[in-house]
């Protein structure tokens, strides 16, 4: 018995070591979103293209929506842009942009020069909607299901591999849920 007790500190030390070692390999910038499972927040913002044209949540089409947070100040947004154009051809979902903390002129130039993959891009100069979405960096992409519920938040640029790993299964799942509801 006494001999066993002597090993308790060692066991505790090893356990603590394992926990802390695991912590070292975690990515501290990957924050869980507090909004998963909640309804997409209401908003009323002008679009990037037209300062006079206001869009709200009601302007979202039915079906699955991807909301991509971007800004011309964000280099990673540029690197994912060509893949977003690829994605915008899909009929399975609609892609919307949320332009965050940007200048309208620069944003318009960006869309003209690089192409516009978005159904529309809301212009969130003051970060009103972005704060409600808990956005802390760009690019970030939200998956909103056909019921308007936020299902996923992905921080970082999207490419084909990330799409396959992170998004494709969820989009398929939402499609299946929809089919089940209809039956």
């Amino acid at each position, binding site marked *: 018995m006494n001999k066993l007790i002597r090993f308790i500190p060692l066991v505790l030390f090893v356990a603590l070591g394992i926990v802390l070692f695991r912590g070292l390999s975690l990515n501290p910038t990957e*924050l869980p979103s507090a909004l998963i499972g909640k309804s997409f927040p209401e908003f009323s913002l002008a679009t990037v293209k037209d300062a006079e044209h206001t869009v709200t949540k009601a302007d979202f089409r039915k079906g699955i929506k991807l909301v991509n947070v971007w800004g011309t100040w964000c280099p990673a947004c540029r690197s994912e842009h060509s893949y977003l154009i690829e994605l915008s051809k899909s009929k399975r979902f609609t892609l919307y942009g949320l332009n965050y903390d940007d200048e309208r002129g620069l944003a318009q130039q960006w869309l003209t020069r690089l192409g516009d993959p978005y159904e529309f891009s809301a212009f969130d100069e*003051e970060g009103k909607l972005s704060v409600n979405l808990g956005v802390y960096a760009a690019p970030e992409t939200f998956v909103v299901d056909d019921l308007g519920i936020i299902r996923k938040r992905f921080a970082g640029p999207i490419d084909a591999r990330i799409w396959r790993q992170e998004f494709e299964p969820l989009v398929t799942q939402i499609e299946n849920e929809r089919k089940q509801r209809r039956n």
Partner: protein
Amino acid sequence: MFNKIFLCTFLFGLLLCNLTTYASPVDTYEFNNEVTKIRFNALTKELRCPKCQNQNLADSNSPIAADLRREVYELLQQGKADMEIVDFMVKRYGDFVLYRPRINSLTYILWFGPAVLLLIGAIVVVVILRRKPVAQTEQVLNAEQKNQLDNILKDKE
């Protein structure tokens, strides 16, 4: 001489402390009373910037921190209570934004772990101190051993 050098170093140090205070971003928010201003300062110190993770909102220059400071300011102007403002942030950014995490089942170990460890340590110390020393039975030397001992002592002399 040494005193003067010491004094100079000390004053220079004080100066540096001041400089770091002034290096924080400056917002031009106007408050209609002193209390709201103090609450604003307290809240932006307690809330963590989600982008620059080791700074609070008050210290960070990042655009997101500026947006969140404005959000805090506007909520204060709307007459929201501190708790409501903190809730607003937690709803959007998660518990992560709190520098002082809330007490819930996930953070029990964080809040009470040190106290529990201290208690365990104290118990261990008390147990060890109070343990009775192993009773030493008096050892009696037999005649032969006594002789040996006498001889050794004699040799020493």
